[in-house]
């Protein structure tokens, strides 16, 4: 399969008054054309920073990509100039943010906001842009698009706004859509609708999607592949089935156990004890060591090398290392 995006050894640091935060510490990731990759992890694991890095939207000057490359269709986005990057944003790569209530400018009409990207990047006339906007609103399932174009964001509900944000992101027909927690701020019922919409759009347009989320339910519904992030690193990646049915990293297992399930035998959820590592001074070894029930001496001192469990499934955990002793089953 053709790889549309390859991230190699990405390091992103933020300078703050308190010191340097190493938000992303060596992320390797790829995305095949037309697939949906979910990046999951808890707050502060670096998943949003990773996705913002792809767009080169790291808040500067505090944030900086210190190492690594992000190749999009063969072009390294880290080395791309600001001007070239502007031509890529919205056209080749689009992004959807978490909160649809604030992602739209309250003082501009929805129609204006929908078409301005198109007008910026192409030489379409107003009539054409409007026709395209109507088409997009139809695609994301908004009724009466004609009259809706003249309205302002506050005249729409949260779910509707997210649909508009999605329409806005897709209007230039991008190859890659990055959705940063697109359903977190929505009602559960709306969440399901929006995720269905993502699936539908992907079938219709063939767009590749990176879905950043901490909601494993969302992941199960739409993702093809999953990357689990922890402490600024990707600790496990695999096909959806690999992650959901054969999780290997203790953190992934913990994450899955902390989700309420209908078929759960015991009535108590299993949270992961402890707190995420301090990224001002990240641990030398595996960032999960302090919270891991299976931690060994090596875990605290050396970061695990990647173990390839199958063609799709990789994990960074000493337990899976070929050199680890296995208990006879």
């Amino acid at each position, binding site marked *: 399969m053709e790889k549309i995006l390859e991230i190699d050894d990405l390091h992103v640091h933020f300078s703050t008054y308190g010191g340097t935060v190493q938000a992303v510490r060596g992320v390797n990731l790829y995305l095949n054309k037309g697939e949906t990759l979910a990046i999951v992890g808890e707050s502060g694991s670096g998943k949003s920073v990773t996705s913002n890095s792809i767009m080169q*939207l790291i808040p500067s000057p505090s944030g900086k990509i210190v190492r690594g490359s992000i190749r999009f269709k063969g072009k390294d986005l880290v080395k791309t100039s600001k001007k070239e990057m502007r031509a890529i*944003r*919205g056209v080749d790569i689009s992004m959807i*943010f978490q909160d649809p209530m604030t992602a*739209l400018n309250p*003082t501009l009409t929805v129609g204006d906001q929908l078409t*301005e990207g198109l007008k*910026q990047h192409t030489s379409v006339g107003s009539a054409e842009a409007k026709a395209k906007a109507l088409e997009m609103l139809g695609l994301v399932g908004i009724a009466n698009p004609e009259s809706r174009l003249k309205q302002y964001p506050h005249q729409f509900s949260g779910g509707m706004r997210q649909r508009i944000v999605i329409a806005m992101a897709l209007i230039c027909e991008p190859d890659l859509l990055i959705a940063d927690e697109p359903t977190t701020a929505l009602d559960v019922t709306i969440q399901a609708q929006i995720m269905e919409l993502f699936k539908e759009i992907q079938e219709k347009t063939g767009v590749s999607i990176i879905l950043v989320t901490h909601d494993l339910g969302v992941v199960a519904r739409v993702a093809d592949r999953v990357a689990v992030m922890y402490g600024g690193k990707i600790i496990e990646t695999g096909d959806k089935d690999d992650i959901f049915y054969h999780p290997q990293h203790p953190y992934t297992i913990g994450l899955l156990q902390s989700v309420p399930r209908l078929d759960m035998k015991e009535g108590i959820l299993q949270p992961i004890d402890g707190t995420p590592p301090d990224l001002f001074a990240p641990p030398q070894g595996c960032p999960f060591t302090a919270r891991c029930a299976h931690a060994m001496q090596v875990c605290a001192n050396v970061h695990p090398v990647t173990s390839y469990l199958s063609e799709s499934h990789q994990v960074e955990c000493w337990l899976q290392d070929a050199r680890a002793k296995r208990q006879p089953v």
Partner: protein
Amino acid sequence: MAIYLIRRFVIMIATIFVIATLTFILMHSIPGNPFTTQDRSTSEAVQENLNAHYHLDEPMIVQYGIWLKSLATFDFGPSIKQPTETVNDLLGRGFPISAELGMWTITIALISGITLGVLAALKHNGIIDYIAMTLAVLGISIPNFILATLLIQQLAVNLQLLPAATWSSPMHMIMPIIALATGPTAIIARLTRSSMLEVLTQDYIKTARAKGLSPAKIVIKHALRNALMPVVTILGTLVAAILTGTFVIERIFAIPGMGKYFVESINNRDYPVIMGTTVFYSAFLIFMLFLVDIVYSILDPRIKLHKKGGS
């Protein structure tokens, strides 16, 4: 909208009525009358004649009635001190000059204040930011009459670049406008900067950037419009401040605007002029506040004028 405008208009009339009444009461509670201050030489009979002529011998309630009638007909009668001129003449002569000074001041304050504020916000914690904010603190701290005298000393007396006073050519206008506009500029700059900084962190700015819009478009179209809300809000108060500022500045630069008549009329107990100018100023201010509300609703579509509490 029409209902809102009508209601707003009724409130404006009521406000002016209250101001007119308060002015009347305050004016008459100042001891003395127009003829007790100077001209001691006038005889008893002349005094009585004068009082009768200006209805000053009538009971207060009758005088109040006459005053309301003159207000309703927009005819405040002749000035007592300068009987050859009516109050309307004075207003007609003074207001255009004051308005010219005021409008230039507010225009320049808005343009330079917003520009400074936006630049400071975009270069947050940079050298431009520090310079702009230092200037802003100076602008807020230095009273306009101090600035006015400093300007006269430096530009007119020492360097002889500009005429020191009066109001007859664009060159004459530079110093009064600078003196009057500095304070409001500083206020607007600080306000624009802080609200711009806030708006720039909003998600819709991130969305705009993610669309690949040019930085200029992001700032002007997406950020500035939202950042200007607080500026529009204080614009009403600012207009009031500039208005009162003109009293002092007009005196310092000997500008024959309304401020001159206003101050003189109080010193002279020139009842018709006091009432005329006060009501005129109030009406003007109320109208400005009304305009501000209209502008507000144009800038922010979430604000609906016809809803209750739209003001």
